[in-house]
């Protein structure tokens, strides 16, 4: 089997010129076996288990980077939802102490983010879940590497509005206690959260997972943009075909790295998440793919169709390339992490209403967007509830990562720097739905969940 110069050149230029990389290798670790009546022993067990395995992950990933000449950008850890393991230790002080332990384990093993400081509360809240949510402003203010999540709805349980109603005020407090409200960038609220998602802030090691599992997040918006740009005049069927072929190749890289890494570590290979994940690097933008389709700016009428087409082609190409496709697998459309999305908001092409509509066809949701700091907590809850309703009714994952920036008004901007990028502050609808949300309770599961 000989490989042609053209094929070698294609792969090499994807990496050298189009930002192809393995976005993340995320090692899921079960922490249930670390629980101990003695809290110090418990935190020691957690620290040791994470550090030992995280270090192995980092070393093995670096070896593969060299072997294949492909950057593996992030090495990360996801853990059992922390509210589950803290059931018998659920005080705010102990939650903060556990967070600091996880934070220290991450820092000591060169892990940038550790996910799973969260809870599954789609049907109701345990005492531990409540304390966890109450402790989040302290946790996010006191740590650097901790990512937090809540799953507040599923299409078989409906939506826990009581849990949603706790989030707005929690986020506002977190915003006021972290520089540029950056703590809010490390919290995401889901409907239908996947148990094997390797991407932050929402990664956690689900309760149906083995003791450890290795999940891979590939990426490559720059590669897809490049082929779309080269095919300006083809029709939608051909466009879909071109994207499928490209994503097949990208996903195969992830599959290769996943297989070898899992073999080196002797840890079961979990999934490859084929999501297109943008970065602020020039050209590495999902918005730029949409523009290359022929749309002047993201948010223009036609954008939802473009994203739907892109998403579908990504999934079809990825599904052929790997037998282990999982996680979120689609297309992320964060604002602050994508230079084209930032530009679209700044020029007025993209507003929150259109962003919400776009999430009905993208893989996740309203991600990394900033709103004015004086937005009422009830309005934040309503933004979350609307977005999650889309996921619950349409049988898909949706999520919200919203950043209410204290002291900032719509039209201003906040710069988080690094991977998190820059977020233009977006205008929210000024009318209130607080009487509706204050009814509380649980939105019943939709009739489409009755499949038995």
């Amino acid at each position, binding site marked *: *089997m*000989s*490989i*042609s*110069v*053209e*094929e*070698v*050149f*294609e*792969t*090499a*230029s994807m*990496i*050298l010129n189009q930002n192809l990389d393995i976005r993340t290798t995320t090692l899921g670790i079960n922490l249930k076996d670390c629980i101990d009546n003695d809290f110090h022993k418990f935190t020691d067990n957690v620290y040791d288990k994470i550090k030992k395995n995280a270090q192995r992950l980092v070393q093995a990933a670096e070896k593969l980077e*060299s*072997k*294949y*000449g*492909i950057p593996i950008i992030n090495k990360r850890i996801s853990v059992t939802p922390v509210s589950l393991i803290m059931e018998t230790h659920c005080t705010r002080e102990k939650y903060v102490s556990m967070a600091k332990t996880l934070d220290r384990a991450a820092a000591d093993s060169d892990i940038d983010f550790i996910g799973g400081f969260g809870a599954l509360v789609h049907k109701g809240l345990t005492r531990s879940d409540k304390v966890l949510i109450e402790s989040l402003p302290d946790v996010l203010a006191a740590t650097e590497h901790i990512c937090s999540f809540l799953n507040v709805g599923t299409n078989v349980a409906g939506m826990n509005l009581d849990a949603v109603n706790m989030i707005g005020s929690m986020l506002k407090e977190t915003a006021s206690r972290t520089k540029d409200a950056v703590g809010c960038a490390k919290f995401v609220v889901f409907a239908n959260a996947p148990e094997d998602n390797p991407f932050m802030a929402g990664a956690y090691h689900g309760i149906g997972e083995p003791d450890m599992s290795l999940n891979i997040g590939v990426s490559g918006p720059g590669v897809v943009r490049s082929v779309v740009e080269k095919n300006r005049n083809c029709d939608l069927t051909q466009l879909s075909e071109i994207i499928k072929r490209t994503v097949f*190749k990208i996903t*195969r*890289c992830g*599959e*290769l790295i996943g297989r070898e890494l899992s073999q080196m570590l002797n840890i079961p290979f979990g999934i490859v998440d084929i999501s297109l994940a943008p970065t602020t690097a020039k050209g590495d933008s999902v918005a730029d793919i949409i523009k290359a389709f022929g749309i002047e700016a993201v948010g223009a009428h036609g954008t939802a169709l473009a994203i739907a087409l892109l998403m579908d082609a990504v999934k079809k190409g990825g599904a052929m390339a790997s037998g282990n496709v999982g996680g979120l697998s689609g297309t992320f459309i964060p604002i602050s992490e994508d230079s084209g999305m930032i530009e679209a908001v700044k020029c007025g092409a993209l507003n929150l209403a259109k962003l919400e509509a776009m999430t009905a066809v993208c893989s996740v949701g309203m991600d990394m967007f900033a709103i004015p700091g004086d937005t009422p907590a009830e309005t934040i809850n309503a933004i979350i509830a609307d977005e999650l309703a889309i996921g619950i009714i349409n049988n898909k994952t949706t999520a919200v990562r919203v950043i209410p920036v204290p002291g900032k008004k719509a039209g201003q901007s906040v710069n988080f720097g690094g991977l998190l990028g820059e977020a233009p502050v977006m205008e929210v609808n000024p009318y209130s739905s607080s009487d509706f949300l204050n009814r509380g309770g649980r939105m019943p599961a939709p009739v489409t969940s009755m499949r038995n």
Partner: protein
Amino acid sequence: MEKELLFITVIGEDKKGIVAKISTLLYECDINIEDINQRIMDRYFVMTMLVDMKESKYPLEKVREEIEKIGDALQLKIQIQHENIFKMMHRV
């Protein structure tokens, strides 16, 4: 003994000494060249070398470092990658 095959890809402007410099390095490392191809693509000069590292005196990290030095000196982009990545991406 099974071969350990890697591709070296050189992308940039064609100039004298590219093959000479790389093949000298490979000879010094005891790395055998199995195949060489070159083409002009997208206005770039592209050369690929298939090499067998089975008997290499140095680990891949060291060879990569030396190859990157040649790339910097000649202002070329040079990649060295195990052949499995190409097999995975381009063959079903």
